[in-house]
């Protein structure tokens, strides 16, 4: 019995040695890259003009299936078309990377603000700290969807970047709190004390001594933020808000629902974007789990 556990344990340890052989991180990154690849290959190999309304026959099923009118799928539109004559493949080749882009951009902006505010609050302290802390605490209690719905309906049509910015307005609070807490505890640590004894200027202590130790937290928090941002973005799009003229996965689901795709059994219209969203979330989750496993510096080996 002990022999088996020992061998399993040793295998588990060896897996930690090289971060890039971590299977979770590898699979997760693979799934996310597949979505990016879908967008790139789509642009090279497929006619993306097919996203325009009426560029194809309506409601065609994927190859090998029949729709309610008995029409079979055709090779010109391998995964079918939607209710206004748009090719599904072209739709997701543009929509899926767009959704991912909104999530990453929103999270990136949110993290950037979080790092700056968190470090300022933790390092400067006093009134500045109070202001930032109260602000982020108050913002955390406001449900983002509520505000965003109001904003978006007021703005009408928005671009992807504006949308990402709006979502980023709700993605900076938790990184701010996390980093502030870490900075406060690190400020007391021996190595920061040693750095001060070494005459290190504040920016050195912040960015060279503290920040590297935060990298695991930042990565984890970043990926988690991407997930929440995508959920928020898709939530808005499914409600019919967000960009009106640019295809996204959420927008496609909204169109399908409002055209009665569920009743007409047009499953490919809403089903394919849903599956892609699921793939995206599973990919992000795996990346997060993988990063968790490898980010412990104690497991780092003696390098060259």
């Amino acid at each position, binding site marked *: 019995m*002990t022999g088996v*556990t*020992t061998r399993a*344990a*040793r295998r588990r340890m060896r897996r930690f040695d090289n971060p890039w052989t971590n299977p979770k991180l590898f699979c997760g990154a693979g799934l996310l890259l597949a979505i990016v690849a879908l967008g790139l290959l789509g642009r090279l190999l497929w006619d993306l003009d097919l996203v325009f309304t009426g560029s194809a026959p309506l409601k065609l099923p994927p190859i090998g299936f029949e729709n309610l009118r008995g029409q079979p799928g055709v090779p010109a539109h391998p995964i079918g078309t939607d209710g206004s004559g748009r090719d599904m493949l072209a739709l997701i080749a543009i929509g899926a990377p767009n959704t991912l882009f909104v999530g990453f951009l929103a999270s990136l902006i949110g993290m950037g603000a979080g790092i700056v505010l968190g470090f300022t609050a933790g390092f400067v302290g006093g009134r500045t700290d109070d202001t930032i802390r109260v602000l982020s605490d108050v913002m955390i209690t406001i449900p983002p969807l509520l505000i965003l719905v109001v904003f978006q309906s007021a703005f009408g049509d928005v671009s992807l970047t504006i949308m990402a910015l709006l979502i980023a307005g709700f993605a900076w609070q938790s990184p701010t709190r996390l980093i502030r807490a870490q900075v406060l505890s690190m400020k007391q640590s021996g190595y920061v*004390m*040693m750095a001060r*004894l070494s*005459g290190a200027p504040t920016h050195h202590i912040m960015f060279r001594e503290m920040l590297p130790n935060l990298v695991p937290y930042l990565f984890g928090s970043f990926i988690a933020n991407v997930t929440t941002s995508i959920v928020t973005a898709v939530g808005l799009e499914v409600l019919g808000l967000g960009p009106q003229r640019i295809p996204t996965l959420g927008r496609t689901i909204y169109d399908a629902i409002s055209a009665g795709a569920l009743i007409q059994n047009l499953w490919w219209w809403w089903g394919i974007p849903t599956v892609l969203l699921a793939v995206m979330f599973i990919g992000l989750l795996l990346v997060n789990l993988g990063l968790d496993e490898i980010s412990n510096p104690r497991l*780092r080996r003696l390098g060259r």
Partner: protein
Amino acid sequence: MTEPGHPDGGSRIHETAGVPGTTAETVHTGSGRNRGRGGPVDSMTGRPVLTLRELSVDFPTPQGVVQAVRKLSLDVRLGRRVGFVGESGSGKTTTALAIMRMLADPGHVSGGTIDLGGVDMLKLSEEDMRLARLSRVAYIPQGAMNSLNPVMRVEQQLWDAISAHEGRRNRKELMRRSDEALDSVGLHPRTGRLHPHELSGGMKQRVCIALGMILRPELIIADEPTSALDVVTQRQVMQTLREAQALAGSGLILIGHDMGLMAQSVDELAVLRQGELVEYGDIRRILGNPGHPYTRALISSVPLVGGKSFLRPSSAREAPGSRRPAPLLTFDRVSKVYGKLTALHPLSFTLRGDVPKIISIVGQSGSGKSTLGSIVLGFTHPTAGAVRFEGRDLRRAGAAGKLGFRRDVQAVLQDPYACFNPFYRVRHALAYPYRRFGLARDEAHIRQRMEEVCRTVGLDPDLVLPRYPHQLSGGQRQRLIVARALMLSPKLLVADEPVSMVDASLRATILSNIYDLKDRFGISILYITHDLATAYHVSDYVMVLYRGRVVEAGPPGQVIGNPEHPYTRLLVDSIPWPDPDRPWGGSAGPEPAADHAHVADAPFAYRGSVEGFELVTR
């Protein structure tokens, strides 16, 4: 696991192994051949409560299997106290965890038996083992006092222990038993109604002992129960532990690395080294006639007040003195007040610095000694008075002056584990300040200087510098910090408890390194400590701080060798010595809490002066 063997540990032992002892059959080679011990058995009364036979513990790692404990065999009898002594990594705690069946994955018992009062612990089911923990064998882990639940009252935590093993009990009985348990460790029942943050360190440690004893286990394992406490509190806690154990009549395993503490607290001693039992027997026998060179090294590493110097300075040559235009450090009626608490009463002294001196500042935790150190380093600003370094007030200095001050005043801090940024290889800690202070000509110059100072403190630069901090032992890290100070050659070094978190066997080495800084490199040192025995050996002048006031000051031979003030006497009496016959922690010493009025009223004692240091006494 990845911790490399200390290169220093081995060499030290060979140095001290000069005296050939009568090597009796004391060394357990693990073959089981020596199991039938002759002499000491007669003196051991009581049936064995714990029997270990050929116990081995393995930790598989990517680099191969590490044998943390190798074929360990020994008995613990009812009513006896057995000490496990050895440096970190010797397998003391691992053995204790194996007995508790609490080894961290992937460690496991790879051979041998653990028998607790006739029950084979390795064969118990998980549920039976859970019930056996605390009720039959209690483990008080290192730093247990910090693991009390902060949101629960002390008595509720005691009740939890009872109801987890005996099911629901009515409140009256729980109350009675928790009060009894607290009483047995000398705490008032009122303490039970408090939350952990309202207790002092010593009280928290006593609560942990009460928690361990509440179900009257046959065996108690205390893992360095006093490691974070100062000498006075250490003595009180050890006294409590011994009394509680005697009351319950159970066996006790005391884990530690300080031979002095062991000598004053246990009946039998097991010396462990790299997972092997190198010596086992009656404490008096081992202290009187240690059989193994490693044991002798451990005993000789304990500094004694009045004994011959345990330091081996590498050079007897005094650093050349130099005339300074202004005294190195001047305190002019410096005081520090935090709210209602006065951490430091007005204090004035002048350290000339013409000839380097080591000034010791001793006292318990809370005596204001760390505040004093922090003021010298410029991290804390005094409430009143002025600190002048080379005649200049730091607070009026410009940016260049501040950087110069940083270069000239360096520190060795208490916790070597926290002093290195885990993100960088350890050479960062040495190279960065060197570059920052503009001392480096080029990269090759930095490398050469780093290698030089590493060798000076007895470390192999090729082995140490390219590593990450977690790959080095505490002793190696602390020596690197000393090397860092040496590399910057400051004019003043503040050493705040530099050896309190380091294995006893390495203390002498590190203190010798620090002593060398003064002797060979002409650096004046403020040595802040609660350990009077080391202060006795290293310092030129000693100031005893009590509640922010200097109560006794003078050359160490007089102040520590022949203390006048009752507080100094209390500190000296609290030092554990490797002498089992010396009264320590018994009824002989006065109870300090009751004595505070007496201590506070005693007149201050100023006992002469040394050249180059002047304490203004009024």
